[in-house]
């Protein structure tokens, strides 16, 4: 089912949680609502589910306007951050509960619940109470309970945040598998960029209630719309250096001149931020963009990370494990095309 969100705004008494948000979510996709805490992503999810009423704007499921419909009439399946499994019911009873409300005959609802339990791999523990299960298993039951009523859309609120690191990777792949097997349009909220990058078809990146960029994960990484997007994605964090455009070159603080093809189209004297991913910086030989000084070299297993100063700014760069550099050595720095961006220093707008 396709979800269309038009100019959605949610204001609480003293703050605007979501600001003029518009997006179209294609049928059958897995979408991540990504952003730092307080960016309005959970508010967004609650408005799609119908728990919160928007202040302005409209939500359409396919062509149906659901803005004023209550959650149960929208046909949404919701998985809560803390699962919200009823502790007094067994797994089977928990999964059956939504069907019980819909007055599905007992035999049919047990059959459907068992089928769901099988899909999420909890069919061997139907008689257990939630308290007797691990976090990952409870998560699976919560997904089964949300899916059993065949919702038009599945919504997950921070589905992985309560799990330990190993389980998190396992469960995110499980969510992907379950989503693909059922083909249900799914939206999940997360603040973890890696989580969003690894399983979603598209990412909605938000900040302070504003949509920053809505794109495929790789596109978000390779072609960030603004400085915030570039900052938010990637590990280690992207390197940033402030500078001014002079004679088609970027002059970084500390008089470090950087020659960059893209900089030639930017107006003279404009204050910019040069953002470079660690893997886009080539230390030593290659074609020279600027000159830097090696400050520190860390060997971390298969990777070698160097801290290099460009003018007064220190940047992290991956270097070839075979090359060796001394501390304080002056080196040529090359910049790859991919992973190097120029933003306006004030607005964060992408210039190149």
């Amino acid at each position: 089912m396709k979800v269309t969100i038009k100019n959605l705004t949610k204001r609480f008494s003293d703050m605007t949680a979501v600001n003029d948000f518009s997006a179209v979510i294609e049928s059958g996709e897995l979408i991540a609502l990504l952003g730092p805490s307080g960016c309005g992503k959970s508010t967004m999810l609650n408005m799609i589910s119908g728990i919160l009423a928007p202040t302005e704007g409209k939500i359409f499921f396919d062509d149906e306007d659901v803005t004023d419909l209550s959650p149960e009439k929208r046909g949404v399946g919701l998985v809560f951050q803390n699962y919200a499994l009823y502790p007094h019911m067994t797994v089977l009873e928990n999964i059956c509960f939504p069907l019980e409300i819909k007055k599905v005959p007992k035999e049919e609802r047990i059959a459907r619940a068992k089928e769901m339990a099988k899909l999420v791999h909890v069919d061997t523990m139907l008689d257990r109470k939630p308290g007797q299960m691990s976090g990952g298993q409870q998560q699976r039951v919560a997904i089964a309970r949300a899916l059993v009523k065949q919702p038009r859309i599945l919504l997950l609120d921070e589905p992985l945040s309560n799990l330990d690191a190993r389980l998190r990777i396992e469960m995110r792949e499980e969510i992907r598998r379950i989503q693909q097997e059922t083909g249900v349009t799914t939206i999940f909220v997360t603040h973890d960029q890696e989580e969003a990058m690894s399983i979603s078809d598209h990412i909605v990146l938000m900040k302070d209630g504003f949509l920053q960029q809505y794109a495929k994960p790789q596109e978000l990484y390779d072609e960030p719309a603004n400085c915030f997007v570039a900052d938010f994605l990637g590990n280690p964090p992207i390197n940033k250096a402030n500078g001014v455009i002079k004679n088609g070159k970027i002059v970084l603080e500390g008089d470090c001149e950087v020659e960059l093809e893209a900089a030639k189209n930017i107006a003279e004297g404009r204050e910019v931020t040069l953002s470079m991913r660690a893997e886009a910086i080539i230390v030593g030989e290659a074609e020279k963009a600027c000159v830097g000084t090696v400050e520190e070299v860390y060997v971390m297993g298969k990777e070698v990370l160097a801290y290099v100063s460009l003018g007064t700014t220190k940047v992290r760069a991956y270097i070839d494990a075979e090359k060796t550099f001394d501390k304080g050595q002056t080196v040529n720095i090359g910049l790859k095309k991919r992973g190097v961006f120029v933003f306006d220093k004030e607005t964060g707008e992408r210039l190149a």
Partner: protein
Amino acid sequence: MSSTPVKKQKMTLEQFKLKSEWLVYFLPFFIGVLIFTLYPIVNVFLTSFKVDFNYITKEFSGWGLDNYKYVLSDPYFHQALKNTFGYVFVVIPISTCLAILIATLLNQKIKLSGLFQTAYFVPMVTSTIAVGFSWRFMFSHNYGIINYLLGFFNIAPINWLGDPANNFYALCIYGIWAILPFTIILLLSGLQNIDPMYYTAAKVDGAGPIRIFFRVTIPLLLPTIFMVIMVNTISCFKVFNELFPLFQGAGVANNLYTVVYYIYYQFRVLVPAQYGYATAAALILFIIIFIATMFQRFVEKKINN
């Protein structure tokens, strides 16, 4: 190990102070418990087995079960048992159901809910006896507000306090009123401990308020309900205070003996005081309450599994 023989040293005052420090913390409390709790309990237990015990001279003719035989065959004790059990079986279910209902309503986000919570708490901070007297007026045959209100439903005035047939009901109504605030407070705190996400989850699945109440709220509140029933059952078995403001005794025609009133009667009203009978009755009540509590624990465990 060193081969020097262990010298038996005299403990210095410092060492003694260190070693006996715990006594300073322990004794004040323990002496209190000893005198005011343990001694009376043991004394009651022993006294109940003393035949022809004279409280003044402390003489008795021997050990035996005579007191129990007397109490168990006393028609007044039979009446006391009947009234006490009747009181428990009427007051507990009605007060528990009412309290759950009121606590659920108080737990809603309604205007003035703070005011209501205070209002329901008032009976708890007032004296049973003092408020009991105002209940006397409310129960009044000709002028009472209760009969006045019943008049709207075309119910003829009931002689609550004057007619022995109605005494028991008056006692129960008053008892329910007296027990409600404590029960409501406990249930309210139980309700507030339920995570609201369960309600949201049920609502998203389309559950209505009645289904949510019976399928989500009540099961999650069950531990508190059990606790409340247990505490209230124990206090209801000990019904006694409530008799005085309403009847100045065991009903208008000595028809409202309760077990505790019977105990009181044996050692406070009778001359000479019958301590043997009173203590025997007290131990019988203890056994009844003990069995009732164990039964409730058993039921609670059954339901939890």
